[in-house]
């Protein structure tokens, strides 16, 4: 009798993954018996990089942490630095930040619906949702001039204004998207063939979700009412609040429903903000040098809570910038929920948390003798060059 495990490797290069990560699934026939994950293939040293650049440059850099939720990174960073400097962006700037953030959420969720449907072999939904996503991409391009890294934020405010013509375009786009979203909600909750692949698959109970500390739509699909926009409102989320979208089932179907239903909340909030867009300046002055202090800044990214810790030292450069992206707490849940499922469900379970590998990749150096060590940017860069030689 062969007792060796039959391991299916997924990654670092695999058609199911859009970014490199490495998963090993021990299978017995088609059933997954064990799973492990290894990350770190796309570590870019951005935290270290942010410590060697001044605040203005670092805002530009952190926006490039994620290609999908770039705006929330810049928002979290700017909010943190503004808090350290003791200034607050003008109301109009905050409203525009919030509008762009919600538009970004729409684009991210539509993208996810497509990717997750593709993992289930339902390419038609993939193609349609990505076609409709173009609408919101065009809106974002119309506002900021960019489709991916919008670069709407600047320390102390925003770079772009929203005029009457753009308001009209956004409202028209939202009307179209709302109609389509209604259709997608119907598809993901009624299509019998698709439900065979999502209902009861990858169930994470509320206890598990709380124990594993998952965040964002993944947590809300397991019945955990957790949303930074509601729990600790930032920007104008106090005045124009979103309603928590929670599903109890904890399976893939619930994750689809939570994300699609959240789109309606985003449409509503954007309309509210556009209707009552505050007048006034777009930016306020932020000092170049910031006195020594430290702060924490939390925002709700499309994937969940995004956490920034920023420590200033009196110069124009941050002493430490620490980023925790939502994928990091969510990733462990994949390894737990995948066990016991069919191999065919694994790509969907993995995609169910909406992973973003390069955002969350980090490097750990373990020194067993207890010695502490701080690497310089130059050393880190050299290490990377050596490693990939």
């Amino acid at each position, binding site marked *: 009798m062969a007792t060796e495990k039959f391991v299916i490797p997924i990654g670092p290069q695999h*058609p199911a993954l859009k970014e490199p990560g490495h998963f090993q699934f021990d299978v017995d026939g088609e059933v997954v018996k064990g799973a492990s994950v290894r990350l770190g293939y796309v570590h870019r040293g951005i935290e270290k990089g942010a410590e060697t650049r001044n605040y203005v440059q670092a805002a530009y850099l952190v926006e490039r942490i994620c290609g999908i939720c770039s705006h929330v990174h810049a928002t979290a960073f700017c909010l943190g630095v503004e808090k350290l400097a003791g200034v607050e962006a003008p109301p109009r700037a905050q409203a525009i930040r919030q509008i762009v953030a919600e538009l970004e959420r729409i684009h991210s969720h539509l993208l996810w619906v497509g990717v997750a449907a593709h993992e289930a072999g339902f390419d038609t939904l993939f193609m349609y949702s990505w076609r409709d996503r173009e609408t919101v991409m065009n809106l974002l391009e119309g506002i900021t001039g960019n489709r991916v890294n919008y670069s709407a934020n600047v320390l102390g405010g925003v770079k772009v204004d929203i005029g009457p013509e753009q308001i009209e375009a956004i409202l028209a786009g939202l009307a179209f998207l709302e109609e389509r979203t209604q259709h997608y909600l119907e598809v993901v909750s009624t299509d019998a063939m*698709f439900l*065979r692949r999502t209902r009861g698959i990858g169930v994470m109970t509320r206890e598990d979700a709380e124990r594993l500390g998952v965040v964002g739509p993944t947590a809300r699909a397991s019945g955990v009412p957790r949303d930074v926009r509601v729990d600790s409102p930032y920007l104008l989320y106090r005045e124009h609040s979103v309603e928590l979208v929670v599903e109890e089932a904890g399976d893939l179907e619930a994750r689809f429903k939570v994300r699609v239903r959240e789109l309606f909340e985003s449409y509503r909030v954007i309309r509210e903000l556009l209707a009552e867009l505050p007048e006034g300046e777009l930016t306020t002055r932020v000092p170049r040098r910031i006195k020594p202090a430290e702060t924490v800044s939390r925002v709700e990214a499309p994937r969940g809570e995004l956490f920034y810790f920023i420590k200033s030292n009196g110069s124009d450069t941050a002493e430490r910038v620490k980023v925790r992206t939502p994928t990091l707490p969510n990733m462990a849940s994949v390894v737990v929920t995948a066990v016991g499922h069919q191999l065919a469900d694994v790509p969907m379970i993995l995609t169910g948390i909406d992973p973003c590998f390069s955002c969350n990749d980090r490097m750990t150096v373990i020194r067993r003798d207890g010695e502490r060590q701080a690497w310089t940017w130059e050393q880190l860069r050299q290490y990377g060059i050596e490693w990939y030689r």
Partner: protein
Amino acid sequence: MSTLTAVIALLFFPSGLVILLAGMAYEWADRKLVARFQNRIGPRWFQPLADNLKLLAKEEVVPEGVQRGLFITLPVIALSGALTSVLYVPVFGLAPAYSFSGDLIVAIYLLSLLTLCTGLAGANTLNRFSLVGATRTLTQMFSYEAPFLLALLGPALAAGSWRISTIADYGAENLLILTQPIGFVVAMIGLMGKLELPPFDAPEAETEIVAGALTEYSGRGLALFHLGKGVELIVGLTLIAAFYLGGVANPLAFFLKTLGLLVVLAGLQSLLARLRIDQTVGLWWRYGAILGLVQFLVLIAWEGLVA
């Protein structure tokens, strides 16, 4: 002289070169239709031809740890099986090149050869994706093959013959889709399973097991398997059109009916999400086989009562 006609029939027309080109044309039509249904542009008309020419010109990499002879001959056997089956089928609306009593069974067997070779090809390599793909391919074969056979035996029973040309003649006089609707549905879905089209594409689900059983194939071997699939698509469509849709007596009827069936296939492909392999097996044995059997029993009872 008869040797010459046999060679021509096998290598040029109706089998051989012509059916290969026709298979690629149908593959293109299928891809284009699915693309249009999915709001995509789809490939240009010569894309399958270009793909296959490119593959055929490429070096075939034989991976380590495989039985070399098998690795090279399996695609050849698969394609020749598919090409041989063409000889017994009224493709292009012409009479079959060869015909004998019982050729229906031979044709169906030759069609299954492709799937069997795909499964063996996957099991022959050490690649883990291939092994899982091979298991799935063979599992799927065991689930759709019996209902598919039953669905094609219905018309044979009605016609009282195992000879494809006789059944086709009978089918031309009687529109069997009206008298045996269940058989028609089972045959269509069986064909989708045979061709591993969505939603029955679990054996080559790219997001799980890359390319399934054929993951290690590149170059010539891959091209031969692809060509075989194209041929199988035409043969399957021809059989269903000839048996159920009132026959394919002339080329015009052949193209209209098979392309009409292809539109239905493309629609189903874009409508449905992929089934897991256990769901595929469950679907076939719980519904497909039972429905096929019901159809069969009704036929037998009918024959018994009328005759």
